[in-house]
């Protein structure tokens, strides 16, 4: 009798242990709430505020795709030394500013991001042909968490490459 029962009871015990082991699986993350905020950011960044000599204008990012595109192969160098080579394409910042009637020269641009980050781009760098408002990264739309457009400054390190761009102020 005991011989018959032993394997059965052991198998049962094994199953119980398995069940206990599987209990902790399948936790949910709190990303959903964050996704809502991300969508809000993306919408907000579709319109970039342009302030020049006290006059506020807006740059709509949706029509930028139909303007002449410039492709830039560059290496994004982040502050910890890591490098991300890639191809970005979009509209040169200088032609966007020209189309908005921003008079040249100016001293620098104060470039603000949705999360409060601020970059300052001098005139010489701002008008370079490979300083662009990028719409694509490696032939694909730039990652959604970077916003609809991203500033790509091929000649400079990553801290110039402002993500979630919301406002540009022209300082003279």
């Amino acid at each position: 009798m005991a011989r018959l029962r032993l394997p059965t009871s052991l198998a049962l015990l094994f199953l119980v242990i398995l069940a206990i082991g599987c209990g902790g699986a399948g936790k949910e993350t709190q990303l959903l709430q964050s996704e809502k905020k991300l969508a809000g950011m993306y919408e907000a960044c579709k319109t970039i505020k342009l302030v020049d000599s006290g006059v506020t204008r807006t740059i709509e990012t949706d029509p930028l795709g139909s303007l002449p595109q410039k492709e830039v192969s560059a290496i994004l160098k982040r502050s910890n030394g890591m490098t991300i080579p890639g191809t970005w394409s979009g509209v040169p910042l200088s032609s966007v500013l020209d189309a908005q009637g921003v008079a040249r020269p100016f001293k620098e641009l104060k470039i603000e991001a949705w999360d409060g980050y601020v970059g300052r781009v001098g005139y010489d760098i701002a008008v370079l042909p490979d300083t662009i408002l990028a719409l694509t990264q490696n032939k694909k739309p730039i990652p959604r968490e970077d916003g609809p457009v991203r500033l790509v400054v091929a000649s400079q390190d990553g801290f110039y490459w402002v993500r979630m761009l919301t406002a540009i102020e022209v300082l003279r």
Partner: protein
Amino acid sequence: MLGKEGKVKRSRLLVYMSVLLLLVAAILFGLNIALAGDVLTLGVEDVKAMTSSRGDYRSINNWKTVETTSFKGVSVWGLLEGCGVTDGGASIKISAPDGYFWPALGTTLTVKELKKKGIGGLLPLIGYEMNTKALDPEPDGTGPLRYVAPQYSIGDTNKPSWVSNVRLIEVGPLEKGARPPAVKKIPADQVWVWGNIPPVYPMSMMIPLAFGAAGLAVLLMSLITVIASRSSRRHLRSAVSALLAAFLLAGTALALSGGTARAQASAVFSNGELVSMPAFSGHYTFLKQLPPYSYYEADYTGVPVSYLVNEKLRLAPGASGVVVRARDGYAATLSLEQVNKTYPGGLKLIIAFAKGGQPLAGDEGPLRLIVPQNKQGTRDQGGDANTPLCARLIFAVEVTPVPAGVSVPSPGSVPPGSLAVYGSVTEPPPNVTPAPPPQAQPQADPAQNPAAAAPQPGQAPVPANAVLDLVNSGFGGARGVVSWVAGSAFSLVLPGRAGALLWLAFHRSGV
């Protein structure tokens, strides 16, 4: 009452049962190791439950923008200590799912540096609250956990060191070929601590242990039954299998206890410790290698390297040589023979801390390697040039080869005057009194060399210690054999990673 036949049946059944239980214990143990492995999974809630601190962190970014942000979180080293990281020299890497990490490429960040307080007495933090609000996770936020570091000087550009969305903390030194978990796959509400941390035994580990204990109990019962009944061949066989099972169980227990002994930090001897070791003083001769082949003589006092690697520590099997490293990057490579031999005039190869009874001057000390001439004398007298090996500004003695997983100390991590000894060395067996110190060189005059009169413990081991030595070495040997055989058995029985990990655990128990 059972007949003889019944007793035999019962004892056999008991043995089968115990073996089965032990097997289940072993399998569960293996599975658990495979599941838990070397990753410690912490939930954000776990981090929040730890001792927290709050501080106003001043930051400067690449744009020279100065900000002050209030953070609440846990100190990084406190968190690591909670994970069982005790090695101050362990290198740390903090990573986020977007690929960002700190320290910057080509630099290191050690636990010791994480213990260093910055401006305002602030420590590097794994923060979860910014300006009294919980940090949001990405894609739009910097949380739920964020690494923030204080400034160490007022002009520090420290913002690039901050890491948003911390998911993985790697603890070095890593074994060769070790691959960290993919950061992107770590859930947003967790942080994983991975690498050279003690093996992780979750509560579920109690289940295989319970099985093991039950197995042992049944085994004891069967042994009693066997002993109680008269011996026969069958009983003998039962006893042998029972013993084998006990052997496996002992191996499991040893793996559990030994597995916690991870790669140790190199031994670092402070200047005080060095000076109180059995010192050797001698009148050394020096010949330079290049014209004009200067020759000079001087009295030096120090610790024989042979004492450090043979008695204070022990050479590991496979140790092939010694590299003595200087703070300026200079390294002197020595053979074990050079280290151990006695040179003409009874001189020893030493790490000197005193010259003519005075501490070494700053340009050559606090520590200098002194390698005696193989043949004393000037170039004309046929002496050999020994000064190239007499490296100044010594901070470390490396015994080659350096096994994977051993911290290689940097000059900055060893305080001036201290000496790190690392590589193919092991701790001596516990409670073993080092063998008698090397005799001071007879030419040395204690009056001229006060350091030569440094305390020199017992000239010969007292009998009680000899017995202790024997017991210790005997125990160590038996433990080694048991865990080695059991480890091999497990690695054969258990497939794939579980077996490999178990083997690793045995290996790390110092066997």
